[in-house]
């Protein structure tokens, strides 16, 4: 009898201890959650309330030489004219290397837009520690020259990329005909706007730095942009 009562009291003591630990655990978890919520959500909310950060702050305003509305209006008109004058009035081309799109403007209006291909951002590393980054340069350029039936003079990387031995300068294997389309516009430093045989890649970054366009777009750009016209690449 005594044994049974001892075991019952032992059990009840154990369950009491367990419930106490559970309560303690629950309490700790809930206080930690409350703490995290206050730091994560409540604190940013409170510090965004002008009621708290602005209270009793005296904002001293200095002597005012406030220009009147008409003067401001006139000044704004002058500024707007100055800004408008910065946009070329004739024709210019904008190329987006991220979306691989181009926008041709004429008299400050969008004249034609379409897809193109720009630099692939591939870094080609050769065995002799030489490397090339195939990237279309960004900034403002001018059309340096216009070519019909351009011929591609293959640079060294074109051979390295295909695992072929690099021929000497002027070697006939360096010249490829008909791969650049019917026209090319030079941007300087060897960068061209030209056509392509790989039309399915238009809209993708696949080139070695030049800008490739579809036949119709290239013709329109060639016919529209004179030598000296601006090309903005971003």
């Amino acid at each position, binding site marked *: 009898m005594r044994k049974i009562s001892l075991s019952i009291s032992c059990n009840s003591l154990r369950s009491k201890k367990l419930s106490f630990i559970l309560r303690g655990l629950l*309490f*700790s978890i809930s*206080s930690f959650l*409350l703490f995290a919520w*206050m*730091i*994560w959500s*409540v*604190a*940013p909310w*409170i*510090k*965004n*309330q*002008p009621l*708290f*950060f*602005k209270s009793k*702050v005296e*904002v*001293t*305003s*200095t002597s*005012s*030489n*406030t*220009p*009147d*509305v008409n003067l*401001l209006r006139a*000044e*704004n008109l002058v*500024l707007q004219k*100055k*800004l408008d004058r*910065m946009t070329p009035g004739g024709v210019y081309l*904008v190329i*987006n290397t*991220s*979306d691989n799109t181009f926008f041709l403007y004429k008299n400050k209006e969008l004249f034609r837009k379409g897809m193109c291909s720009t630099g*692939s*951002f*591939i*870094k*080609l*590393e*050769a065995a002799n520690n030489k490397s090339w980054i195939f*990237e279309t340069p*960004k*900034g*403002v350029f001018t059309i340096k020259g216009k070519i019909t039936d351009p011929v591609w003079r293959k640079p060294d990387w074109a051979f390295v*990329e*295909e*695992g*072929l031995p690099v021929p000497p300068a002027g070697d006939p294997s360096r010249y490829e005909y008909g791969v650049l389309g019917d026209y090319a516009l030079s941007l300087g430093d060897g960068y061209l706007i030209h056509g392509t045989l790989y039309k399915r*890649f238009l809209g*993708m970054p*696949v080139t070695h730095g030049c800008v490739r366009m579809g036949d119709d777009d290239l013709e329109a750009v060639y016919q529209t942009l004179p030598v000296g016209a601006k090309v*903005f690449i*971003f």
Partner: protein
Amino acid sequence: MKQSKLLNWLLLIISVLLLFITLQYIILSVISVRRVFVAANSSEIGTQIELNTKDSTWLELYKQKNWMESRLKLAKSDSIYLSINLQDSTLQLELKGVVLKTSSIAELRHDRFFDELTGNAYHHYFGQEASGVQTLASIDKVPLTVKKAPKDSLEFASQSNVIDSTEVQEINWLMHLDNGIELKIKGIKSKSSHNNSFWRQQKLKQIKNNFSKTLIFEVPEYNPSIEIYVDETDAKAIYRAIPAQPMVCIRL
């Protein structure tokens, strides 16, 4: 029983401590905003102009003038810059005064701090162009892929030359400007995403910094922020187009 009482006390002490730390964190955070607010309002500027806040026409013209002046100044530089018009909800990429890309802002959020700005403070933040000092992003600035040149034409033929399709990613970037503003550019997709690790990481980092300061009774840093939601492809194109430390002009 003694052990239970001890545990009880321990729990109580921990809870009180957590509460105290939380209060300390909140109070010091509010003080940080207050300090920046006071400093911005008392900052010295070249010509003291009081904002005629009662006349909305005057105010709009004045803000427009500031914005255009900044754009004209930036147009003289050779690098691509950002011009943000929060009034018209447009984000523009410009070079030499020519707008290269205009992206419409789908949603805009900013700290209420900016609603309370007075003349001097407006000048401090938006009166002139700012420069980006640090940019963090969820994508690479230059998506460079390194490719080893093949040894011969056989190896070239075996190489995979398939181009990855245009992968759709969540685009988010954060720029700290030299005038203290935090510019948060978010792709519109990330708005609906519940698993945006980029912003969660930034917030955690900020809380950690602030927390370590408040624990030693230091006032944490406060940077008023502007959140801009734009189209994913625009956010990507603009981020990749701007230089590492771009110039920015904002019109509130």
